[in-house]
């Protein structure tokens, strides 16, 4: 009987054969924490080891400072300092401080992620690293602390869902719209505890940033991981960053042709339209056309789901085509995922053009997914964002948010009300 990708990944990490449903102790390739959750991990580790503990392998522990970067309060500054000092004491060199950007993206850009790696982090969207075939998962501080003892933790070997996507996106439609459509179709627990493998010609042609978008939203369907084995340009990019071992991993960890799936779904994107998650849940999905004209106070383009250069380029194309600026009274914010993405935006000349058009262009950070940093919404305000969750009050008590693609978000920023980007792009 053939094996799925997650079965092969867990087999590699466990060093033995595994079966679906079994609980298995796995070796970690990387165990990470952020400025959020990181201080909790450090304090807990020091407490349970009487400050005498050593992490099992300082080279396999990393810290990323992204939730509130740079820090906006004394409390957060203190937490970040707690992490810096612990890293120094433990000889942990992989500390990506407040200048780097969103953790998983930074790890990926720095060549620290290979297909088949098992990675923990205090971020529920760690699993976007499934975009390069890694099994990364968000966990709480106790799981991180436990993994620091001997570099292991346990997983249940999950069943796997297979999603095949064919067709070409029409102008103004992109991977985010497909994802929103899938979340609307399957619902908030539609991938409950599952691993999902993505196939089909749409996926094979897709870029790294599209794959990241796709895999990041698996969390919003309560999935464990979404996996795509790197091919084409994504594979070239990854080999350049993470080395030749990537090639072996791709060969040995791809799913078998006769792998067993618990569910198989097919989607075709030829006739897909721009989609949006309406307030106040990711699975409350409608076509953008159905809510066009609705008032929006603030637009935010960025986040671990849609903060890559390609996402910001897509927004830029809408701005260019509109030959206009942000609507009066509208607040539009763009946040690149990482410093590397920000530099790409600078080199492409986007930042200047966005600023001239009235956009606020920020440093790379997760901050706009919280109510505790810049861009928080007051009660009653409505936002549109390319982030991944829109439960009531997420970015400010009593506020509501629509989730949409960077193109829809930019079109909405320009017109001052929810706008189908095809109305601008033609």
């Amino acid at each position: 009987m053939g094996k799925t990708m997650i079965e092969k990944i867990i087999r590699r990490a466990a060093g033995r054969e595994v079966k679906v449903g079994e609980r298995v102790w796995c070796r970690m390739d990387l165990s990470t924490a952020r400025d959020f959750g990181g201080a909790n991990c450090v304090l807990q580790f020091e407490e349970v080891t009487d400050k005498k503990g050593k992490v099992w392998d300082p080279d396999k522990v990393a810290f990323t400072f992204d939730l509130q970067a740079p820090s906006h309060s004394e409390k957060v500054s203190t937490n970040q300092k707690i992490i810096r000092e612990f890293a120094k004491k433990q000889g942990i060199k992989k500390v990506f401080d407040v200048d780097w950007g969103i953790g998983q993206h930074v790890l990926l850009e720095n060549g620290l992620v290979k297909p088949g790696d098992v990675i923990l982090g205090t971020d529920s969207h760690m699993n976007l690293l499934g975009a390069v075939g890694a099994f990364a998962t968000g966990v709480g501080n106790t799981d991180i602390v436990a993994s620091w003892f001997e570099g292991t933790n346990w997983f249940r070997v999950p069943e796997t869902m297979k999603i095949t996507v064919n067709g070409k996106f029409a102008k103004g439609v992109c991977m985010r719209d497909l994802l929103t459509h899938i979340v609307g179709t399957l619902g908030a627990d539609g991938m409950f505890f599952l691993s999902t493998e993505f196939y089909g010609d749409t996926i094979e042609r897709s870029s790294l940033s599209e794959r990241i978008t796709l895999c990041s939203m698996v969390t919003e369907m309560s999935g464990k991981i979404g996996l795509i084995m790197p091919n084409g340009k994504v594979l070239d990019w990854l080999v350049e960053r993470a080395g030749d071992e990537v090639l072996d991993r791709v060969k040995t960890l791809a799913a078998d042709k006769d792998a067993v799936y618990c569910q198989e779904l097919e989607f075709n994107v030829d006739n897909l339209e721009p989609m949006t998650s309406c307030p106040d849940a990711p699975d409350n999905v409608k076509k953008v056309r159905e809510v066009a004209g609705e008032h929006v106070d603030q637009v935010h383009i960025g986040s671990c789901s849609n903060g890559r250069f390609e996402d910001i380029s897509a927004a830029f194309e809408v701005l260019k085509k509109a030959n206009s600026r942000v609507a009066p009274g509208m607040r539009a914010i763009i946040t690149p995922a990482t410093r590397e993405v920000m530099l790409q935006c600078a080199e492409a000349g986007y930042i200047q053009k966005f600023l001239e058009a009235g956009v606020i262009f920020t440093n790379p950070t997760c901050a706009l997914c919280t109510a505790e940093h810049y861009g928080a919404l007051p009660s009653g305000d409505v936002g549109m964002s390319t982030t991944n969750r829109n439960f009531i009050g997420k970015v400010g008590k009593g506020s509501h948010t629509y989730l949409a693609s960077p193109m829809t978000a930019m079109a909405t920023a320009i017109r001052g009300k929810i706008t189908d980007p095809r109305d601008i792009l033609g």
Partner: protein
Amino acid sequence: MENKVLRGKAWVFGDDIDTDLIYHNKYLAETDPKKMPQYSFEYLPGKENFAKEVKEGDFVVAGTNFGCGSSREHAVYCLKYAGVPVILAESFSRIYYRNAINNGYPVLFVKGLSQAIKDGKIKDGDDLEVDLEKGEIRDLTNGNSFHGDAVADLEMDIMKAGGLIEYLKEKAVSK
């Protein structure tokens, strides 16, 4: 786990209760678990008074996918240290489930609870009696009863040890 019958009032929630609604991102910088209960459910409309009014021994009762969203363990601590002895839900989100087990914090999977909540068969303020060992849940206010399944497999071993850290320490000693 102690084998005893618990009594307390129900705090009833729907499906897909996200971690920002349980413990909002505004308070993520908190590092002392015992200070977390004061923020519980502050951002969930209709439940803003939970933190002030919850009594030790009260139960959290929810539908499917409880604790979806973020990985924050704060969302478990804030209920554990508020004195909620067990969470009863039809299902738990993956990370929330792990975080509860890792702290030796009991959860019961209760079939049909989501629909029962929608049908008003279990309501806010109802008096509940919960036999953790047997998984028997009785609503003393209206006479309805439910059955909940405890965790199994490795998760039960971790629960019995009192949490993941304790489990690993026991394992290290027995090596």
